């Protein structure tokens, strides 16, 4: 089979693999979840029935309160703001990802919830307001105390751990989004032919393929 044909085959292979669960009519809530699940692209890719059941349980509830979600939105946009290259964390729907992932990985729930409270407490002590209601300048003043592990005061160490976690989750949510993948310049995930490292790159690093490699490799 030639390469073009195999790519074509792949295209139709990816269609029609939807896994739909029978809508359950026992309660309105269940019906709502089923509806959400059916409209969810995730359920249209290959999943074991056990996986799909677990997924439905994960998305059934909400974890963060509206207050917490607003705080996460502010924090994630401080970490990944819009710049000359790309959009912001909220442009890439990072808070929604964080809401999902703490339900999917429950071990993240306590550090996130506790960290958000720690942040509000510090903010209330300093500015008499929860973090999300502070002025941008005040928010950055507090973030500066927890964003740099090497200079943070000992009493802010828990804040540093929290901010490291939020930075990690924000970066994951952002760089795995369409906006973020483009920003960081990942160019794969598509049919191609690997011809080796481009010549100008080889030259840049003073490298070259050996005659043996050029002869033996495709």
């Amino acid at each position, binding site marked *: 089979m030639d390469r073009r044909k195999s790519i074509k085959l792949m295209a139709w292979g990816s269609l029609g693999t939807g896994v739909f669960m029978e809508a359950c009519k026992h309660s309105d809530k269940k019906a709502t979840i089923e509806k959400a699940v059916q409209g969810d692209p995730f359920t249209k890719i*290959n999943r074991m029935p056990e996986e799909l059941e677990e997924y439905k349980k994960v998305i059934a509830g909400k974890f963060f309160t509206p207050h917490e979600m607003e705080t996460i939105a502010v924090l994630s946009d401080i970490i990944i703001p819009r710049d000359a290259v790309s959009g912001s964390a909220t442009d890439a729907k990072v808070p929604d990802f964080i809401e999902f*992932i703490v339900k999917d990985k429950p071990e993240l729930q306590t550090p996130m919830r506790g960290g958000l409270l720690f942040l509000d407490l510090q903010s209330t002590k300093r500015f008499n307001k929860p973090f999300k209601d502070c002025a941008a300048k005040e928010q950055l003043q507090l*973030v500066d105390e927890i964003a740099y592990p090497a200079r943070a005061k000992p009493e802010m160490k828990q804040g540093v751990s929290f901010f490291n976690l939020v930075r*990690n989750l924000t970066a*994951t949510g952002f760089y795995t989004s369409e906006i973020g*993948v483009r920003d960081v310049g990942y160019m794969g995930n598509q049919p191609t032919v690997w011809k080796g490292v481009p010549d100008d790159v080889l030259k840049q*690093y003073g490298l070259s393929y050996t005659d043996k*490699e050029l002869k033996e490799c*495709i």
Partner: protein
Amino acid sequence: MGEFQIRKQPKHYDAIVVGSGAGGGMATYILAHAGLKVALVEAGPMYDPIKDSLQLKSPWESPRRGASTKFRPFGDFDGCYWGWEIDGEPYTHVGDTKWEWWRARMLGGRTNHWGRISLRFGPKDFKRKSIDGLGDDWPIGYEDVKAYYDKIDRLLGVFGTNEGLENDPDGIFLPPPKPRLHELFIKKAATGIGIPVIPSRLSILTKSINKERGSCFYCAQCGRSCKAYADFSSSSVLIIPAIRTGNVDLFTNAMVREVLTDKDGTATGISYVDKNDMQEYQMTGRTVVLAASACESARLLLNSKSQRHPNGLANSSNVVGKYLHDSTGASMGGIIPELFDRKRYNEDGVGGMHVYTPWWLDNKKLDFPRGYHIEYGGGFGMPLYGFQWDIQNLNGKYAVKGKKKEAGGYGASLKEDYRFFYGAHVGMAGRGEAIAREDSYCEIDPDVVDKYGIPVLRFNTTYTDYEIKQAKHMKETFSEILHAMGAVTTWGGDDGPENNYGLHNPGNIIHEAGTVRMGNDPRNSPLNKWSQAHDCKNLFVVDGGPFVSQADKNITWTILALSMRTSEYMIDQMKKRNL
């Protein structure tokens, strides 16, 4: 549930094959193509990569962005159902011993996602006891298997190069892909300090070999299974073609309970639970071929007790479950400052490394008896869950675009850091040979059953100084290579005697072997040199179970070669009316 009863399948098969991974797939393929009627029994559901693979899905198409779950421990897009734990199917350990047991439940088993590393065992690998006095020699040698390696190279396809190495035999290879940038760095650094780096040997089609399968289009996602059938999976390359012969009845979601025998001790068939209706079924066959994985096959034999086989089937030697061993593993990673701020291009390549290091030293001059090979990774991978995790440990250490910054941070400056460091990471992992020992084993737990009522395995596996010293040597080698390439170690560099130098738990490398080993002496080996039970001549085992030792090579290519050899022997014995 209705009244409990056992339903009998009416058809009598020439062969009942249990398990559809590499060994079971090959047996099914060979037997069905010889015109024999085969029942293929698989504990998981149907799986066809062309429909079911998650190849070319983008990270945002997974709500968890490719993070792992218990259903897919290698990530949300991975092509293997289940892994370290399966709901309702526990396993236990003696004391605080560790065995990590990977179990796939799907057509094709773990071959849907494996690394496609396809290494022949060499002449020395079959005769290690003769070399170092440890373990046992195989009852066969490379010369007995070579013709089968040649056949599977042609049938399944593998790329690589003929290097004329004594214990890493040449094969019938497709052309390998050119090394990626970080692989050129590795090659230059390692060869500069006397460590060979040669093209890897992976069962991926860099050229088309037949009309049924496509050729590689370089997406690096073999782990998701290939919709173009351009890599080797038992599902796509062996079983689906075997079904087309019309000689195979496929039973999916069928969890085999035991092998049935008659009063003479001959195997008559199997009993299984159909997971769809939780009913008990039996089927009969002229032969039974176990390929459920080294540990599952041992479990089946030990659970198949009868008056004639009071100790479990094929176990008069009392060694079924013993000599269980895995490849050893240790790893380390670093970052190459010279690669910071790299020019972007698509370097996905094939799924896995383009180069590797075969074992290159003489163990007689070392303080551990067996070797290891080195696998390499790095470069511009698809961003997934965990992308540049803990950048605060990195971005304070190097000037970014000429500017030294404080570790951590946020904002536009942080975005610059993520771009700057992307694609500069490199990793390496050793995969070595452990000694198969009688006192490292699995057995039936006398107290625990799974949700099908089948007694489960209890593991009691340990490592000795041999494996620990080998891991220490791996770590020293990795440090030397990283240093020689100007890289800075970022993980795996802190291991020491307190944690056995980062030696992974047994089982973790997913190369289980040795539980139903072959040998000429029925007193210490359940199988003869054809993988046929000494105690029960119409019973065969064709997974990792028959392995006497497993070399410093991944075992799949040898499972396939031996399964083909056993299948041809079965056909011959059936023709001669010996079975």
